[in-house]
């Protein structure tokens, strides 16, 4: 997931997508120097990690942001962080005896 987000274009796409429910490729390509094709490739990367979903609207695809993967990762990191806090507290007691 971090690999998917570790790209300026994709971060900007995610930022745009957060601004509303659904966006078309045209809307996402607006104001960008990149081609439709390039934007589509980036969207597929984001789709693969579940941050973005595409919804078919007639002949067109529209895209939406899904916060769940990032929320899930945040929860997991918080959990790991808490485990370290507890382990290091035990280390502190252990060495300061």
């Amino acid at each position, binding site marked *: *997931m971090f690999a998917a987000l570790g790209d300026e274009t994709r971060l900007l796409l995610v930022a745009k997508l957060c601004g509303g429910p659904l966006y078309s490729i045209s809307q996402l390509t607006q104001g960008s120097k990149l081609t439709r094709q390039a934007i589509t490739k980036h969207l597929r990367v984001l789709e693969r990690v579940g941050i973005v979903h595409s919804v078919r609207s007639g002949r067109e695809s529209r895209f939406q942001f899904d916060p769940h993967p990032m929320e899930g990762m945040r929860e*997991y*990191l918080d959990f790991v962080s808490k485990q370290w806090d507890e382990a290091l507290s035990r280390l502190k007691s252990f060495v*300061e005896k």
Partner: protein
Amino acid sequence: MDNRIEKRIELAAPVSRVWLALTDHREFGEWFRVKLDGPFVPGQVSRGHITYPGYEHVKWEAVVQKMEPERLFSFTWHPYPADPKIDYSKETPTLVEFRLEKTATGTLLVVTESGFDKIPSGRRLEAFRMNEGGWTEQMKNIERHVTKTS
């Protein structure tokens, strides 16, 4: 949100004492709560099992990376592989680094864990199970509330 976690802790003990607690597998096991099969050796796999109450079935496996005396100890592992049905070796391991620095009062230990990229499968359930203490507290609160209002 970063794909790394960093912890800094000041320990009122000399660097050599902290180094021993980190790199002697028996001492490490005491505070980390794991029983290891043998000593840590750079480049080699360290195996054992968790001794944290309720998780004694969970295997520990890490690959020791660096051991620079009294400066850096590191290993790669799959954190909290609690479900025996899942093959965690297919997931990207994270890197844990312990860095030691002498201070006026003892030792500054900086621990970083990096390389998070995917939430491993089955992990979200484990997160809640491991936080059983937290849930027990919640249940008590609910019980208190329910008995009060009935």
